């Protein structure tokens, strides 16, 4: 993937923070030997628990933090690409200024001509559903609106690289989905490269083509989402049938020494079991056995791991993907 199409090339990037004062010379290794290549036009997700080094990595790409070792380059561009970023979410805004005033200030210091800025602001605010908040001070907006405005600011001047640190954090489902949908659309339309960090696995799964999972400053896994799912896929199957048949099915599975568990949930008259098989071929005798018992299945499917399952198994994090 390396070469001129790589929008971002990260080579052995490391960052060790050292205390500034002589009596506090403690060291924290935030990022260790991270190497990544992100092609132009890709949405790449950086996932990891708190303190994994995601934000430091993204800030090194933005040039806001100086690496201790390694380098970040942009081979697809003849000069440093124009970068848009959401790094502190709604804190990126001047709260005393309105949406338009924020757009005007950041756009002008970015060098976007005022005429272009007016057009772009109208278009982006309309897209993100904040056009009616144009003249309201940011401090009077809801958190979701502020977050959308922060994303709008990142799009000003048509950046070639977008760095988004937790862009949907704290948003309601509808707002989060709006932002995801628009990011995908704008990325496709403008051949924009996006690097996004998130704690929300569903966001990463729906938004990103590839993800890198960070653990203790290192990239523990980096693959297309579909490949990761395939790699971590287990021979787990969900069986659904009439609840009245549950004792007979359990008796059969126990006799056949098949590992299973009852799936919690309110399924009314339906029982659901998660059956863990040795391999895919073990499906045949399982089916034959159930057929011989005359069990009518209402559900039968292979259970694919979610990105959250993969994340947990890689990072070993407990209590969710936080």
């Amino acid at each position, binding site marked *: 993937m390396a070469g001129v199409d790589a929008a971002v090339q990260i080579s052995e990037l490391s960052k060790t923070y050292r205390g500034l004062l002589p009596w506090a010379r403690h060291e924290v290794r935030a990022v260790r030997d991270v190497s990544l290549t992100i092609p132009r036009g890709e949405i790449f997700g950086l996932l990891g628990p708190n303190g994994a080094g995601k934000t430091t990595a993204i800030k090194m790409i933005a040039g*806001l933090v100086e690496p201790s070792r390694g380098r970040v380059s942009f081979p697809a561009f003849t000069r440093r690409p124009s970068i848009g*970023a959401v*790094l502190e979410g709604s804190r*990126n805004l001047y709260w005393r200024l309105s949406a338009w005033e924020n757009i005007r200030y950041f756009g002008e*210091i970015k060098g976007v001509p005022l005429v272009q800025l007016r057009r772009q602001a109208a278009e982006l605010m309309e897209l993100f559903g904040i056009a009616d908040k144009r003249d309201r001070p940011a401090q009077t907006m809801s958190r979701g609106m502020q977050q959308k405005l922060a994303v709008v600011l990142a799009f000003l001047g048509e950046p070639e690289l977008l760095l988004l640190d937790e862009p949907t954090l704290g948003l309601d489902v509808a707002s989060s989905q709006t932002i995801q949908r628009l990011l995908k659309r704008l990325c496709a339309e403008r051949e924009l490269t996006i690097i996004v960090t998130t704690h929300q696995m569903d966001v990463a799964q729906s938004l990103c083509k590839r993800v890198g999972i960070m653990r203790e400053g290192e990239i523990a896994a980096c693959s297309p989402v579909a490949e990761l799912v395939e790699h971590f896929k287990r021979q787990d199957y969900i069986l659904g049938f009439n609840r009245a048949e549950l004792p007979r099915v359990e008796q059969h599975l126990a006799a056949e020494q098949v590992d299973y568990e009852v799936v919690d949930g309110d399924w009314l008259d339906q029982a659901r079991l998660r059956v863990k098989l040795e391999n895919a071929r073990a499906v045949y005798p399982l089916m034959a056995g159930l057929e011989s018992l005359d069990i009518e299945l209402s559900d039968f499917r292979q259970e694919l791991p979610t990105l959250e399952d993969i994340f947990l198994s890689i990072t070993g994090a407990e209590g969710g993907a936080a």
Partner: protein
Amino acid sequence: MTRWLKIARAELVRDFTISLRYPLELLTGLFILYVLFMGLFMGAKLLAGQQALSGNLDGVVIGYTMWFFALMAMNTMSIDIENEARQGTLEQVYLNAPNYLGLLWVRAAVHLTMGAGVVVALAVLIQLTTGHWLALTWAAVPAMLLTIILTIAGLCGFGLILGGLSLTFKRIGQLSALVQFSMFFLAYAELSSIALPWRDIVAHLPLARGVDMLKSLLTPAEAYPALGTDLAWLAIDSLFYAALGSLVFYAMERVARKGGLLSHY
């Protein structure tokens, strides 16, 4: 329009918008400045008596207005950085502006130009209240303006040293307060009454020579043969502080980037 002029316009519009949106804050600030001056004026009158004070009133007004400029320069170059880091916009400005140090200089020019309006209004108010009018002659205006600009440039440079420290260490409120207090003394330092070699040392500190020159320029009855030399020294000092401030800021900015401190507060 060049990029930096656009940045100046953006800063002007932002400042103006905030000032108009929160007029009470602006008016309260002006009122506090006015009350502070009147407190200073009344205190001086009590200590020195009316007769003794009338000769020095020009000095009191000039010293006070220049101290106000010094506070504005310090605020723009250091306290504003601390505030931006606290509210979370510092990194965003860093990412969007072509050069943060350049932006700070432009911001200072805009703030201080706007501040000049406040200073003029305050000076008129003070003169109306005290009944004492500065003996300003049109002939002295160009030299006064040049003196004010050079003095402020030196103050901004000095402020950048604090700004650099603020970028790295964030909480420098106590140091800022100490510097602001020191500036007050420099604004009222009577260079002629200080013995050598201290006089020369104090004259090279920010503010002192500028205020001294402005007081001399406001005394048209007396000739000012050393104006050229003083202007040259003021320019050298200001250039030195501007260069030193920029260098310290640049070095501290690197430390902040190395330590990932730009967004910390």
